[in-house]
């Protein structure tokens, strides 16, 4: 298999399979990841092929999953754990923030914790509450963690490979509404470093910066804007921590305008950090303040209201218009 079209969920599945095949220390663990293959089937067939010792159905306890993964990593394993849904990660938040993130520093570098925490995240699938959240900023605030999120099948495959190989803990946010989107995956050519942003559409008038599920929306917004004669650049940030400010800066110095789009609430969101840093770096290049499009400061709404809460094509275009009006 060199290049093949596959769904994003399948790309992660293939990537996990490759990791299990090539590194005997890799273990996959989580709720329902074994026999069922995960509620999204991301781990489908792995337990059948690698056994219950490598693909582990765990008790229903998120803190326990991450806490024991830390212990396994201390023993030399490379656990890839699944948190079933974004809103269920908080029982594990203590283990992630106080233990997983800090142990390398506490040991003055003697301990490494190569743990990947997979979290399907984001809305747009009509789910019940706690199944549609975007908590990436709550983790980005914590030193010691790396946070990445692919937007397409190829990145899903390769970023998972790179996350597993990383000696640092990686929170791997999977855009669940894009799980079924198909894309070309070349399993022989690494597309680039894990924490580097990628220009997915070149433009001159304004930069749309996004990651995960919002990249596709921004591409659609750029298409719509093009019909109105606006030439937008779209940047797929790919990594939230570290964040590739150099690529952002290069893009903004060219377009002079920036709109950041994410599903998470804008208040204290990654867009706020981007706005602050880009303002510092590009103050004399900017023609407009950095604008943000994201969730509101309200609990994630019931499914029949989520289209109003989530960034939409029109909300992105509205922000584009406001930025261009300066």
């Amino acid at each position, binding site marked *: 298999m060199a290049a093949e079209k596959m769904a994003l969920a399948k790309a992660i599945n293939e990537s996990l399979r490759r990791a299990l095949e090539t590194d005997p220390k890799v273990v996959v663990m989580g709720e329902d990841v074994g026999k069922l293959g995960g509620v999204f089937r991301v781990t489908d067939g792995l337990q059948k092929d690698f056994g219950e010792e490598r693909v582990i159905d765990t008790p229903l306890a998120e*803190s326990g999953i991450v806490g024991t993964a830390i*212990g396994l990593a201390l023993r030399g394993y490379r656990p890839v754990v699944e948190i079933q849904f974004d809103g269920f990660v908080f029982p594990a938040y203590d283990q992630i923030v106080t233990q997983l993130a800090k142990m390398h520093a506490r040991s003055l570098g003697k301990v490494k914790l190569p743990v990947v925490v997979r979290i399907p995240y984001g809305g747009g699938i009509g789910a019940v509450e706690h199944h549609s959240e975007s908590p990436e900023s709550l983790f980005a605030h914590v030193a*010691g963690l790396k946070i990445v999120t692919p937007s397409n099948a190829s990145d899903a495959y390769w970023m998972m490979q790179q996350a597993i190989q990383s000696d640092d803990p990686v929170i791997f946010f999977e855009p669940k509404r894009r799980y079924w989107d198909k894309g070309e995956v070349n399993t022989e050519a690494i597309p680039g470093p894990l924490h580097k942003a990628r220009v997915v559409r070149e433009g001159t008038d304004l930069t749309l910066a996004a990651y995960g599920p919002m990249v596709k929306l921004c591409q659609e917004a750029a298409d719509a804007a093009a019909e109105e004669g606006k030439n937008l650049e779209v940047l797929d940030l790919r990594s939230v921590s570290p964040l590739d400010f150099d690529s952002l800066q290069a893009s903004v110095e060219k377009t002079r305008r920036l709109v950041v789009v994410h599903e998470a609430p804008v208040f204290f969101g990654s867009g706020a950090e981007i706005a602050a840093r880009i303002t510092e770096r590009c103050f004399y290049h900017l023609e407009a303040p950095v604008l943000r499009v994201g969730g509101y400061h309200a609990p994630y709404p019931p499914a029949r209201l989520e289209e109003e809460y989530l960034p939409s094509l029109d909300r992105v275009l509205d922000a584009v218009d406001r930025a261009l009006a300066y």
Partner: protein
Amino acid sequence: MTVESTAARKPRRSAGTKSTAGKRTTARKPENSEPELVQLLTPEGKRVKNAEYDAYVDGITPDELRGLYRDMVLTRRFDAEATSLQRQGELGLWASLLGQEAAQIGSGRATREDDYVFPTYREHGVAWCRGVDPTNLLGMFRGVNNGGWDPNGNNFHLYTIVIGSQALHATGYAMGVAKDGADSAVIAYFGDGASSQGDVSEAFNFAAVYNAPVVFFCQNNQWAISESNEKQTRVPLYQRAQGFGFPGVRVDGNDVLASLAVTRWALERARRGEGPALIEAWTYRMGAHTTSDDPSRYRGDEERVAWEAKDPILRLRRYLEASNHADEGFFAELEAESEALGKRVREAVRAMPDPDHFAIFENVYADGHALVDEERAQFAAYQASFADAEGV
């Protein structure tokens, strides 16, 4: 067990039990009368028989008994020195283990070199048994690092301050040991307060489900800062194990021999693939929770006085003397060694340099992070901006 000690033990058993019951008039309740409490040495230093656990210390030699005594005395001396150093302003904080020496030395000496230990922040005696230099423990209390020793150097993990978290790490580590097919075991330390944490219950359950070779060693020192046992639990802690599907034992945590025997039992069955066990070491925190605490606000002195009569070091000394296992020379030599240790610790702490400012940015990540690099550079530039002024 040696012939000598068997002979010494037999006639004392019934008498020892009686005198224990009769003498403890000041205790608020007769803890040692708990039928489940495993005890091999009474507070008076009498060896009492125990059909289940004698076998685990039968072969112990006078030399090994003196070794346990020495461990406890030196640990207490180190602990006292650290308390003094805090009072002198050399340490920011100290969490004393005073009163818990037997539980720690007994269990610590039960571990094998290839076993792995997950401590709280009070396991100075266990650290001693594992060969961790005591001065290494003081860095975090002085504020020059947040741990700092190599956990794999002595299979002794970093101190864990967030209560109960390490029980899960121990369980995960033990799951790894089982996967590796190794015959070593893991021991997780925690206290009565930690028993209320969800992580500890989750650890019990994961360990049971995966039959992990881990021993849960709970030092019930009666107090979680100001909260007594009654605020933590409605059932004796060791009984919780049953609900998870593994055995639980309450041992006299002030009895080094019993702590050694029961921990050996638990570790050996874990190594044999028989899964986890819970040991509740019934002991007492003789001092404050930490040097910042004031126990007079929440507990009376009479309780401490009652526990003083059950002192772990005193009872072994009585046993050593009564069975002629140690002479004056031994105690005098140990006293000198103890003072030398205090001096060494004192000098080492005072000589401990403050870390380089740039240590803030060290080891945040194993593979580096662009933001850390950027902020380090900003910090360096900021510091360098004073260079001219200082040079003038």
